[in-house]
């Protein structure tokens, strides 16, 4: 096998003069037809490397680049990004930006149109790839209306339709539930068998590790490990790339009234019942995992609890008081929530101001509590930094601190594990357990079943596709009708 990707002494930094090299004298070789997993903690240079491989760096993203890069016998710096289309396909991390056409068929056809293919060939290849990905029924729909998993498959189909011999995927499993992740694994396996060179950059290492030929670990911009996946397991655990969670607590049955009680909740979306007659209680000091595949209604249920989505039937009691129909602002003092994307909330120029904004609006600003929160969540050193300049893990911790700023009785976390590396997941699990020990009721909506198993005392399942094992499911399973 001949090498198709060769990097020798590659260094890159985004700002000339900065002392932080994202890639630092990196050497790497990928052979034709190889299936490689590239992993590493947040900020280790994985996505930067992906951008280097098709020339986005230096053509679109500026910085200082040193060393030699050869991809399919050509240096990406020497030719335009667009001219690299038939040599290397790059599936980017953000599906929303990647799907820029108004219909699925137009999205898939775009790359072939760029290559100047004839209309008959475009139609033929478009339908062939749609059949392969089982997305033929979606061809006339707008990408906006697709689920997260469908969007990811479409992004991949839109790149593969041009038949590039090398495909690089940046965090393809980030937003996928188990069903879609398994389907993507299958597609990648087929591609590998057909001789395509695959480089998968991924934080959810376990999802893809058993399938790959080789695992490369980046740390501080260098490859610190390159070897067989079977031998990598222990090293990945040691480097916290596969999270190792604390031992679960054994708790007695809850006593007293639940912090929040849901009775017979039914919610309809577009005339269809998303969930029906759902009842559960969230107790002080307990962690509940809200699980279910993408599209099962986890986020809608959270929105209903927060007063953002009206219910078709049922009632919600907060500390024994009916709160149906109350506005989110009225519930904010009692329910703290950290949404999936922390960037939705940041609007000040300093971490400390961001943290205080919500509790100040609620008239519950407590400087001593803010100080304690900052210290516990390792934000004290970052207090004067801009929230937008934080790493993904730091942003997640800040959004958790924002949710806790008004001292709520219930904490809701919507998909807290997305985009987090193993070390961040371990920290997050530790924090949630500590908060529950302090008497907070916690609800975690997640499609990461390992995380749910690690932290949850009980589960609320919106789908019976793959329930948690009985020993992990805890004392009570909610009723989903």
């Amino acid at each position, binding site marked *: 096998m001949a090498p198709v990707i060769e990097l020798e002494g590659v260094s890159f930094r985004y700002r000339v003069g900065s002392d932080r090299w994202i890639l630092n004298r990196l050497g790497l070789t990928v052979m034709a037809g190889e299936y490689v997993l590239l992993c590493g903690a947040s900020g280790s240079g994985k996505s930067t490397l992906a951008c280097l491989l098709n020339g986005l760096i230096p*053509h679109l993203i500026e910085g200082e680049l040193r060393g030699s890069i050869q991809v399919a016998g050509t240096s990406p710096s020497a030719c335009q990004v667009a001219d690299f289309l038939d040599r290397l396909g790059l599936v980017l991390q953000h599906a929303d930006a990647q799907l820029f056409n*108004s219909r699925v068929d137009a999205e898939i056809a775009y790359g072939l149109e760029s290559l100047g293919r004839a209309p008959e060939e475009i139609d033929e290849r478009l339908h062939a790839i749609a059949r392969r990905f089982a997305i033929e029924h979606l061809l006339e729909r707008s990408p906006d209306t697709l689920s997260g998993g469908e969007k990811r498959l479409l992004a991949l189909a839109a790149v593969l339709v041009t038949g590039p011999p090398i495909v690089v995927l940046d965090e393809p499993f980030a937003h996928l539930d188990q069903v879609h992740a398994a389907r993507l694994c299958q597609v990648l396996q087929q591609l590998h068998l057909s001789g395509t060179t695959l480089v998968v950059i991924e934080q959810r290492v376990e999802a893809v590790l058993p399938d790959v030929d080789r695992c490369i670990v980046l740390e501080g911009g260098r490859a610190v490990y390159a070897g067989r996946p079977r031998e990598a397991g222990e090293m990945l655990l040691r480097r916290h790339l596969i999270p190792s969670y604390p031992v679960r607590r054994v708790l007695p049955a809850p006593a007293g009234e639940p912090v929040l009680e849901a009775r017979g909740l039914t919610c309809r979306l577009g005339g269809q019942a998303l969930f029906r007659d759902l009842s559960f209680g969230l107790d002080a000091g307990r962690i509940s995992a809200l699980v279910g595949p993408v599209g099962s209604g986890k986020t809608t249920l959270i929105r209903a609890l927060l007063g953002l989505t009206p219910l078709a039937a049922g009632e919600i009691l907060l500390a024994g008081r009916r709160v149906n129909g109350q506005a989110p*602002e009225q519930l904010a003092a009692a329910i703290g929530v950290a949404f999936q994307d922390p960037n939705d909330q940041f609007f000040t120029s300093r971490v400390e101001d961001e943290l205080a904004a919500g509790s100040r609006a609620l008239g519950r600003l407590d400087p001593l509590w803010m100080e304690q929160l900052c210290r516990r969540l390792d934000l004290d050193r970052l207090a004067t930094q801009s929230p937008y300049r934080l790493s993904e893990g730091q942003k997640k911790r800040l959004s958790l601190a924002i949710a806790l700023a008004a001292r709520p009785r219930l904490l809701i976390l919507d998909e807290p594990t997305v985009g987090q590396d193993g070390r961040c997941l371990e920290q997050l699990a530790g924090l949630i357990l500590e908060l529950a020990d302090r008497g907070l009721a916690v609800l975690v909506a997640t499609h990461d079943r390992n995380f749910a198993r690690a932290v949850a005392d009980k589960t609320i399942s919106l789908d019976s596709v793959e329930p948690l094992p009985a020993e992990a499911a805890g004392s009570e399973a909610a009723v989903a009708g």
Partner: protein
Amino acid sequence: MSIDPRIKLLVGLGLVAVIPALQRLLPLAALNLILVLGLWSSRRNRGLPSPLRLGLPMVGLVFAVSAVSFDPATAALASLRLLGLLLAAGALFQSMAPEQFADGLRLFHLPYPLVFVVTTSLRYVPLISGRLKRIMEAQRCRGIDFRLRLRNLTKVTALLLPLLVQSFLLAEHLAMAMESRGFSRKGRSRRRRYRIQPLEYLLLGAVLGALGGLLWWDRNPLC
């Protein structure tokens, strides 16, 4: 029958040229009525198209300001013209997908980068408005009040700043995705081939003739 995008664009252009030129209420109202009926018949049970939904308050505002500044007749004329333009835009975008719109513009030999910018902007309007809604909900859940009160005026930064940052990030990611998929590559082809049928020429002639007739009626009042 699928109508060639060039025909649709020419009809749209004809409407945009005629609507501001009409100077009497009756022909303008008649044209608006025809457009409303056309839109209603194609969108039963789907509500108003978004350009119209967003523009209707503006029509009311134009009427109110013109009625105060000039007289009710001028106000009615100005607001009907604006309504007509919104209806024409609604009908145009209702009848063609952004890709078809782009194909039409490219067939008129407009440069591809310009066409792409126009159509991608159309595509991202709902996405950005969805993001704005998501940001507003996230901020409300931490207790920030956005109800229409004078004291809440300064809180608009809690909406605009995250939206601005996210829009810049989206633009950056979009540029990366476009280039990776061959945006600036030379020799681009089109998946759809278009050929104007004789019937479509007839249709275009009939619509432009009707618009000409409307202009004649406007200048030569019979009733």
